[in-house]
């Protein structure tokens, strides 16, 4: 259950969520502006006894250009999304522009018992699914004091 205590400590994620919830609570009419630009990609995180599962809602990417790194228990998802908007000289009018464009980076700190060498990554329908296995030898260890 280590991973459960991870996220309440992530103050920015908490703020993000609070902001989103407030927006959703007050936004009763279907606004033409949409809502929630609190982070691209949006992340859902969960786990089973054997693995940690991360879902990044990152539509419109080239899977070969998504950068996923694990360094000392910190997972980073990085990349860039091209804009769909026409060039400035094109004869076109942009009526709504809500979709994210540009570089993005999201960081998740992983629980201690995951194995960074056993990561499955799959990109399907615009969702990046990372499955990181937990180590089997996650038993507590006694450290000798000299």
């Amino acid at each position, binding site marked *: 259950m280590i991973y459960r205590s991870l996220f309440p400590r992530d103050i920015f994620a908490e703020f993000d969520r609070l902001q989103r919830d407030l927006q959703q609570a007050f936004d009763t009419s279907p606004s033409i502006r949409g809502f929630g630009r609190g982070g691209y990609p949006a992340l859902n995180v969960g786990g089973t006894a054997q693995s940690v599962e991360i879902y990044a*809602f990152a539509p*419109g*990417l080239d899977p070969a250009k998504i950068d996923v790194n694990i360094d000392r228990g910190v997972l980073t998802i990085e990349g860039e999304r091209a804009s769909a*908007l026409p060039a400035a000289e094109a004869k076109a009018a942009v009526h709504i522009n809500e*979709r994210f464009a540009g570089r993005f980076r999201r960081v998740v700190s992983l629980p201690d018992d995951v194995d960074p060498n056993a990561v499955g990554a799959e990109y399907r329908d615009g969702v990046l699914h990372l499955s990181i296995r937990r180590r089997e030898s996650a038993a507590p260890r006694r450290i000798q004091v000299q």
Partner: protein
Amino acid sequence: MTNDVSKTEESRRDAVLPPVDVIEDSTGITLYADLPGVSKEALNLRVEADTLTIEGEVGLATPEGLQASHAEVSVPRYRRVFSLSKELDPEKIAAELTHGVLKLRIPKAEHAQPRKVQIRVS
């Protein structure tokens, strides 16, 4: 009548507004909508009178016994409704779904297409 009831029930279900880009050029409108997690089969596009409805269900392959610890996408459904204007031709909408991005091309009707006017000098 029963149809109407089920329809209102359906529209009452919670759904997230997907972010969109809408671009208009001389021959029509291009709409992009972010629908991550929606497969082709789970996408529902409807045009009724002059109303365009985009609806999609999020389908994720989750392992057994998954417990969520943090969720930014908590409603597994997208819905967004647009009114189309008269000069658009709803019969000729082309849709394409790639990596969770829906691209709709709605051309303008024949009579609304741009036309170069020849000026004759006599």
